[in-house]
């Protein structure tokens, strides 16, 4: 009996953050192997955080990812502040949320226009898109710039902000510094609504996912900076209960670990999960844009995640305007955070999904242990499951077309490979 084997390999995935490869094997018309291989070099952050001071993770862990440094700063602050029993003042909390909105806008616009849209429009890059649609790309750049400006005014710098510290900020911005941003954000909110309209006209391949959807949930706001960890299948836990529910596995093909829910298996974090679990918390203007774009209260087609990201960009602009308008300078830019022996957990919604940090610190503030679980590591199993399903349903496509569909499917999740690889070190087997 002769076997026919098709072997699809993409070395060096383009338009993703970091270095990854994809490998699919089809034997006798059956998908026999699907692997998202991450070969980004490990950087061992958890190893060298040990022995550093408890005040350092916001600066150090920011360097895990240049695209979402604020997420690392916010999750690490939250975890260490919890370990030290610090309570954050409301105006500082609002400033943190504003800073985070800046990162969401910057990162989402980058993904929508620069990484993802070219797939739907048959272009290799946004720069190629600009040849025929210069106005659209110019608009995208200006939207992205506003996200960066928020990070510069509140955080001091767009990539690796310098103004974030435990307890809050080194210096709180003045109302006068923030006010000009509001005007530009009103333009950006309109531009985001236009973006929702534009991307909703794309042609979306059919794919319905059944992964358990996991996101932070907050009763009063679209959860970004804090919340309980909930799912569409009944998970509802405090962030501090994370280690009892989620485990990671080290597989040979990857310098990233794969996350699973204990006894429940693969799950998905990110825009689809957030949207589906927190639809009711979206600001009205974002819900209206979603409705106009044909989205219901749930979205389970990962190809439509580009629409959800655009809706979330509307929400982030709207929220940033609200926060700036309601801003009053805090009495102090940071609350004191004194060290004490303990363990703290932090989780925030990075643009790609939940980013979890845990630190164990000594009474003098020395870090004894650090665990970091980035969103892409959690999504790896879901990404592979989608690829398997897509390939099985599209076997008739040529290798070229099938490969393109698979690459597009990976980009649905905006995988941040730089993020996902740093943390090999932290699943330590203790003997």
């Amino acid at each position, binding site marked *: 009996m002769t076997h026919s084997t098709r072997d699809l390999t993409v070395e*060096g995935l*383009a*338009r*993703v*953050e970091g*270095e990854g490869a994809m490998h699919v094997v089809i034997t006798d018309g059956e998908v026999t192997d699907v692997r998202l291989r991450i*070969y*980004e*070099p*490990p*950087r*061992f*952050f958890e*190893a*060298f955080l040990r022995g550093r*001071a408890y005040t*350092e993770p916001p*600066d*150090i862990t920011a*360097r895990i*990812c*240049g*695209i979402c*440094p604020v997420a690392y700063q916010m999750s690490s602050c939250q975890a260490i502040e919890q370990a030290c029993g610090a309570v954050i003042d409301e105006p500082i909390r609002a400033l943190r949320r504003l800073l985070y909105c800046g990162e969401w806008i910057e990162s989402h616009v*980058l993904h929508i226009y*620069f990484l993802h849209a*070219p797939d739907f429009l048959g272009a*290799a*890059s946004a*720069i190629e898109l*600009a040849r025929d649609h*210069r106005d659209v*790309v*110019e608009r995208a*750049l200006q939207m*992205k*710039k506003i996200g*960066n400006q928020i990070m510069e005014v509140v955080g001091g*710098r767009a*990539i*690796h902000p*310098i*103004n974030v*510290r435990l307890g809050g*900020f*080194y*210096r709180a911005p003045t109302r006068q510094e923030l006010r000009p941003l509001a005007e530009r954000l009103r333009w950006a909110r309109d531009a985001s609504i236009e973006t929702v309209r534009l991307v909703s006209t794309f042609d979306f391949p059919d794919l319905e996912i059944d992964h358990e959807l996991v996101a932070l949930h907050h009763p009063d706001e679209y959860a970004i900076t804090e919340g309980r960890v909930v799912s569409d299948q009944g998970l509802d836990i405090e962030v501090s209960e994370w280690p009892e529910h989620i485990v990671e596995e*080290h*597989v*040979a093909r990857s*310098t990233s670990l794969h996350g699973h829910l204990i006894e429940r298996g693969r799950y998905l974090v990110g825009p689809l999960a957030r949207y589906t679990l927190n639809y009711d918390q979206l600001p009205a203007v974002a819900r209206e844009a979603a409705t106009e774009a044909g989205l219901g209260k749930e979205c389970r087609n990962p190809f439509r995640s580009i629409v959800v990201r655009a809706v979330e960009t509307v929400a982030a602009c709207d929220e940033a305007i609200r926060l700036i308008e309601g801003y009053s300078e805090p009495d102090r830019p940071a609350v004191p955070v004194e060290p004490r022996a303990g363990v703290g957990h932090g989780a925030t919604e990075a643009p790609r999904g939940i980013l979890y940090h845990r630190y164990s610190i000594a009474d003098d503030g020395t870090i004894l242990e650090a665990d970091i679980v980035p969103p892409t590591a959690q999504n790896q199993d879901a990404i592979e499951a989608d690829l398997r399903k897509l390939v099985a349903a599209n076997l008739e496509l040529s290798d070229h077309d099938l490969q393109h569909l698979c*690459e597009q499917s990976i980009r649905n999740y905006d995988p941040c490979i*730089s993020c996902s690889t740093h943390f*090999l*070190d932290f*699943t*330590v*087997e*203790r*003997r």
Partner: protein
Amino acid sequence: MPGPSAGGPPPKLAVWKFASCDGCQLSLLDCEDELLEVAGTVEIAHFLEASSAIVEGPYDVSLVEGSVTTPHDAERIQEVRRVSRHLIAIGACATAGGVQALRNFTAVDEYAAVVYAHPEYLATLESSTPISAHVPVDFELRGCPVDRPQLLEVLTAFLRGRRPNIRTHSVCIECKRRGNVCVMVARGTGCLGPVTQMGCGAICPAFARGCYGCFGPMETPNTQSLSAALARGGMDNHTLMRLFRTFNATAPAFEAASRARESREGGL
């Protein structure tokens, strides 16, 4: 070196990634007001984060982000050099090994105490090294991350065949120019500004914070004198050592300063 003659094909630009956070290449995409203009004057021939179109080398200008940390990357950088007319290392990882060079200070036996789930799956080198440790580099642009205007200046300079105008004196000069109050003098805040190369715009002192050395050592850093002053101000040895040993830990002047403190401290 002169650029390609007018009327010829546009120069080919390539962007390469080694061990890094992606932040320095993102700085190029963050040039929102200039990106399309730059893209109009070059052929973006290899930039995986931004484009799936790949044009074969050789390339006129290669921007290299990240440090070398794996056997595979040690070979790959040779290939990148071979196909690049000008090779520019961008950022603290590419110019000084980056934050991941903290592994270079860990003794092997200490490392062995940390047991990985499956260390046999990994291929990694003992140390993280800058690009210049492997191949000749035409220019090193500092920063964690690099500064956008400086990145544009360096790129433009190489495309036009002139030397980039990048100053190498200290953050203090930039701080004075910006009109910042000196955080060390006025508040006694520890600051690496006197020994750190300018380029960031002195942002930390502008936010009432001491410089933490993202841009690495300036041209003639007197780290000994600064260390002594910080110690007199009450900073303990361990904190001083960590201050020099973070994002440019293996830049020679900073490494010497942190080792000097470590020998007093008796190890981390």
